[in-house]
């Protein structure tokens, strides 16, 4: 990717293309964001702070950020492991596994929520058994985590996979012949090479999780101060006609997601330079 920076001065066609693409992305992405920020900031920064720090809003934001944090940590490990298995091993069902990894992108998240309720709801075998053990999954915080993990499966896997493919297995074999254990190989050879990809994939999954609505609204129970996440709080505020409050809380989610996405890009670029 790196190294193809404008080799020639753009001709008139190139300028037109750039203007067109810029206009397209600008109108599609930047304009709605600007509308949101304008609404959120219209009543002033103090009003924004009051909207965000209202107990119910703050609690919903904390819940969203916490569940996203836990999800991100789990994803970093399981995603890397999945990519490792997909790249380093050739086995029956490998294509099936790879296809399954992409599936969450294709399933409407509302359906994800319904699936989880069917699996863990009080009427289901698993849900009933868990209830007898004193654990509640559906309509409780664990279900939020499960929904987030489900919808973000592809992020880390697909970020790590190409880097791992470039990584020569010979290095690992050499280390092994020299007597290095699995842990040392992981620490000295694999992780340094994979870290940027793991981090950027994790960050992207985190940003995606912040906005998740469809699955959580079905599966979490939506009780204020208990299982009500920020996007669903935002939805409630819109529905009860308080667009400024909704815009303020959305602006916080957006700022976090934007900062993280930019961070992911910076990490990718730095990694690109050191590799190249």
């Amino acid at each position, binding site marked *: 990717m790196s190294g*193809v920076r*404008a*080799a*020639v001065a753009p001709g008139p*066609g*190139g300028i*037109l*293309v750039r*203007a*067109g*693409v810029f*206009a*397209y992305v600008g*109108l*599609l992405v930047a304009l709605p964001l600007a509308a949101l920020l304008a609404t959120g900031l219209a009543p002033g920064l103090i009003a924004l702070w009051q909207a965000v720090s209202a*107990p*119910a809003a703050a*609690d919903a934001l904390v819940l969203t950020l916490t569940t996203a944090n836990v999800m991100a940590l789990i994803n970093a490990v399981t995603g890397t492991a999945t990519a490792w298995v997909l790249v380093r091993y050739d086995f029956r069902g490998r294509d099936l596994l790879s296809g399954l990894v992409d599936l969450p992108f294709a399933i409407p998240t509302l359906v994800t929520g319904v699936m989880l*309720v069917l699996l863990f*709801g*009080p*009427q289901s075998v698993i849900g009933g058994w868990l209830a007898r053990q004193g654990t509640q999954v*559906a*309509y409780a915080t664990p279900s939020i985590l499960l929904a987030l993990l489900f919808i973000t499966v592809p992020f880390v896997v697909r970020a790590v996979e190409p880097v791992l493919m470039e990584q020569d297995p010979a290095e690992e074999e050499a280390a092994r012949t020299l007597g290095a254990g699995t842990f040392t190989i992981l620490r000295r050879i694999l992780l340094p090479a994979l870290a940027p990809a793991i981090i950027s994939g994790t960050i992207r999954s985190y940003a995606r999780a912040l906005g998740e609505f469809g699955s959580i*609204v079905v599966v979490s*129970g*939506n*009780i*204020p*101060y*208990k299982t009500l996440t920020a996007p669903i709080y935002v*939805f*409630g*505020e819109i*529905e*009860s*006609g*308080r667009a400024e409050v909704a815009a303020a809380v959305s602006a916080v989610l957006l700022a976090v997601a934007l900062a993280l996405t930019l961070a992911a890009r910076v990490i990718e670029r730095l990694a690109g330079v050191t590799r190249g």
Partner: protein
Amino acid sequence: MRLTPHPTIYLLAALGLALAATLAACDGGAPAPRTSTAPGKSRTLVLGAYTTPREAYGKAIIPAFQRHWKEKTGEEVRFQESYLGSGAQARAIIGGFEADIAALSLEADVDQIAQAGLITNDWKAGAHQGMVSRSVVVLAVRPGNPKEVRDWDDLRRPGLAILTPNVRTSGGAMWNLCAMYGAALRGQTSAPKGDPAAAEKLLAEVLRNVGVMDKGARESILSFEKGVGDVAITYENEVLVGRQAGRPYEYVIPRSTILIENPIAVVDHYADKHGVRDLADAFVAFVRTPETQRVFADHGLRSIDEGVAKETAGRFAPVEDLFTIRNLGGWPEVRKTLFAPGAVYDRISAGLGARR
């Protein structure tokens, strides 16, 4: 490597410019899905409704009106129907969804459209004060009522699992809380009569037992059907329709509950703009005729027409102490005391914050 623009990139650029041009050409209003109609012979009526009466309107009332109008005038009427949560539908209409008729769950939602200047007629003037159907708030329970839930006070019992939708997103949830709060204020529960603090305490104890707050009344009863919860606070008509469809739950009518009244109104601004005012007026009159009221009764709704109400009385259990939103001071007052920021509902949900 030399970067030459690939032909498809021109296509992409053209697409972007076309999009920009399209957006610029839009007049900024929300898109209203209207089919073009030939002037004179056939006109289209746009109905913006809440979700509960979807089957009643779509399968029975609209076809009947089309036949009725054709016989009377020879004109074909086409319909466009939109069904959303009551509040969301009101906001869509205010935002530019050009519905000729608004049929909503809450009077307050039609009031909002009127306040936006889109309804200018005195829509509450008629014999039925602008209403078209009725229901009551009831308690759906499991077969045989194993938890022995008989009245509002039973809902405060610790360990009971209750379903009621989210007040922020559901008109039905507001009706539910009004029913309980009103019953308490009227001295029909263990709370002393006319004691708002005691009524608030009852609500708080009941809400503590609520484990799932779905988006709307329909989602809530669907969760109940999936086996969640011991009791669902819901509309009588949802339960009756569910039972007609063979769902195995029962229901209990609390001793004191609220009469739900659903309004319908012509949205003057859009009806005039589309030249369908006579049609819209005729439709609103049509839904109040005994024939149509019988259709609503078949879909579990109590009738506003006295004759039909008597006829169908056997299908709807009597309520000992039935009150209306006016007994609580009307919607503007109820919004202020119960649902405004910092009011009863906010205070109670802040009290639920045991997690912190």
